[in-house]
């Protein structure tokens, strides 16, 4: 298991810990995270304060750690580090994820009608336009549309605490309203515990059901 950390500045924390509501939000978020990884100095030592932690093992995940919230999503990319410690990400089809490609994905999603129009042309036209300039775009975009994001968030939320309906400490699994559910926690969950719980190569964590 490889672990790479990135320091988060105030300007990053603002958008990283904003709510995600749907799949396009997740893809946008992921693209911005890739950009952050590509321009940030990676650390192979533990960083104090707000940070992103990239955990590379059988399945790569990225964690975002702040005092009251930690959350994680899958990173559907291969992670490679070069000799000078630069982190590079590749899609399943071996396309390098670059600042340019991530911007192209963002621009496709930004099109007013791509996800809403009843006309197939409104979906295909922006994609074809980018595809003509960057043929690798489509395979990456398709992967992003179908990847399972595995969203999970630890919340310490005193403001909205409401007994067993909204426990002070809880895990939110999934982000969109229909499939989302909470798992209450009796005590705070450290970021290390969350990372360990989601790591497939270590022992499982157990959920104790109270019924």
């Amino acid at each position, binding site marked *: 298991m490889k672990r790479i950390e990135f320091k988060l*500045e105030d*300007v990053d924390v603002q958008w990283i810990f904003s709510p995600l509501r749907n799949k396009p939000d997740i893809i946008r978020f992921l693209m911005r995270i890739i950009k952050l990884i590509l321009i940030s100095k990676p650390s192979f030592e533990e960083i104090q304060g707000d940070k992103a932690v990239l955990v590379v093992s059988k399945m790569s995940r990225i964690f975002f750690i702040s005092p009251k919230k930690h959350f994680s999503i899958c990173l559907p990319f291969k992670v490679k580090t070069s000799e000078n410690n630069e982190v590079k990400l590749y899609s399943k089809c071996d396309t390098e994820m670059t600042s*340019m490609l991530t*911007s192209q994905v963002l621009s496709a999603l930004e099109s*007013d009608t791509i996800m809403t129009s009843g006309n197939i042309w409104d979906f295909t036209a922006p994609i074809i336009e980018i595809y003509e300039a960057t043929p690798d775009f489509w395979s990456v975009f398709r992967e992003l549309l179908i990847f399972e994001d595995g969203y999970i968030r630890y919340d310490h939320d005193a403001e909205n605490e409401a007994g067993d309906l909204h426990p002070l400490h809880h895990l939110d699994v999934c982000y969109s309203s229909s499939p989302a559910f909470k798992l209450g926690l009796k005590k705070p969950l450290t970021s290390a515990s969350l990372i360990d719980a989601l790591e497939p190569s270590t022992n499982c964590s157990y959920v104790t059901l109270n019924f």
Partner: protein
Amino acid sequence: MSTSFFYMSREKSNANHNIVDEIIRFTDIHNSQAYIIDRPLGDNKYTYDYSEAFVLLMPKFKIMFFNFSGYADKDFEAFRDDFLEDLGSIADKYRYRDIIGRPRSWADLIATVDIDPTDFNLEAILAENKIVGDGKQKVCELLISLLTGSINDIDKVKSSIPDNLLDKVKQKILLFDGDQTRFVYQKNNKKIIRIQGLSGTGKTELLLHKLKELYINSESDSIFFTCHNKILADNLKKRIPEFFNFMKVEQQIEWDERLWCTNAWGSGGVKNSGAYAFICAHYGLTFHSFGAMNFDHACRFALKQLNELNNVSPISPIFDYMLVDESQDFPQSFFDLCEKVTKETVYIAGDIFQSIFATEIISNITPDFLLSKCYRTDPRTLMFAHSLGMGLFEQQKLQWLEDDEWRACGYLVEKSAGDSLYRLKREPLRRFEDLANEDIKSTVLVLTNEVQGQDTESRILESINTIKANNPTVLAEDIGIIFLDNKNSSFQMADRLERSIPQHFGWTVNKAYETKKKIKDRLFISHRNHVKGLEFPFVICVASRISSAYGIRNSLYMMITRSFLQTYLIMPSEYNQQLYDQISTGLEIINARNCIEVQAPSQEEIVKIRTTITHSKADISFYDFVYQIFDELEIYPLFRPDLYETVKRTVGEKFARDNVREVIEFNYKIMLREQAQ
């Protein structure tokens, strides 16, 4: 003579032609704007019976009612009172009253001039009616804008007079020039009207004004507004209702019934998705989809099928008018198709300079309206952008225009040293008149040097810092950073700036190649492909190696001219030291002498690089048109006034040379015969 300084809404007549000619001469000598109107433009409901007067509008002068009747006349008084009452109600309609006050508060800005058309002194009349004081001048300019239909956003104009250059330019009252006013209001009977101009000459804005004029002039006319690019068409479609609201158009927009605004192609089976798709669906033509063939072929097939249908039974047009923007993106066959399906007129607007750098050489362009004045950009910035774009300061020039073409692009050409040294100047613009008093460099060249720690990011941040220091009221949205290269390194630099600009200045950025829009309160970042139609007070252009490729130079020209106050051009010394030395000398001359000084290329070089743009000569009034024919036919002056009236009655004010000539010859013979008896 420049046609852009003068506009007249009525015809010259025997009574007024002396004073009109004198006013034209004045505007030409003093590079000042003048409009002669007989009613407020922009709304046909304002008409008056009285014809022995006109109103002269000139910025910095009172609104002058010229009375030609030669005596104090009740009808004239009534005309003036009605006109001013209507002006008051227009001011109300556009919410100008809060800024300019009620009519009685600007009554001192109105003057009456009783004039003897054979004996007058224009200079003295103007001296008497000069307005002193910025505040009064501003009110008068606002009144002129209302009367010429060049409506300014009153929330931007504000009532106070700003104390700094940035706000002065931002709040400058914009007025149409003569050419622009003619395009919007002049009636014509031509099937195709072409309007061409550099970027920043206001083509799209004028098309919107024309659209508004056409839309409100009839309640049944159908109009199709189109351009090639879908994003641009979507933007236009959003702009139209905003523009109509702004212009207080009372009619509802009947989308897809009276008015369409889409890109040109569209998709098969969806009639309203494109101009071509609509035409195919309406006439039952075979639709060829995007990707199946190029647009030229698709249009040719459609035309062929239409002609076949027409041979069976004549087809009727489906639109009354079509408006086509960005015509340089289209093949001629599309215009032919538009003409075929349009009853009245197809208005076609395009950018000549985009054509100049295109790979295909266009030998002849004959616009009906040639807009040579770029109002977006400080003329010095435009001169530098042309110089760099065309490689004028370099050993191997990339482009050279003929004298007429320089003029078509808005240059005044002076030559010396046996015609080999050119001095190319541009006329000053009202919008930038305040800059003349300030020591501000229109373009700043900045070299980066990684080895010395002056990397691109730090140079960009430094430039923003300088802009902020020199312009305390600058906002995030006033600055645009544009990358020349569409490469990953530019995207990555933009990602870095997205993080460092908020940290340094507290401003958030808008990477427009992702968001595809301009966002208020955000600093704009984009690259060369996404800057069309945009303008900022300050632009920071970021280049790597500036090669001689036409595409690169044309993009640089486009990028540099996005600013209306100042452009920073940042480039690495590693690749551009030689170019920097050449262009910085040329730039110094532009800043110091307001002109491009350039050695003309040899005849041999010119042959290599020449592209011809011809344009039809400037429009002339019907009066001048008829009088030119009188000159050709050597008509005695005695007969000319009566003959002129006869021509107008018989032919109407149509520029039909053969008809007019025939009517003159026929009637002249009769007049001579009668005279002899």
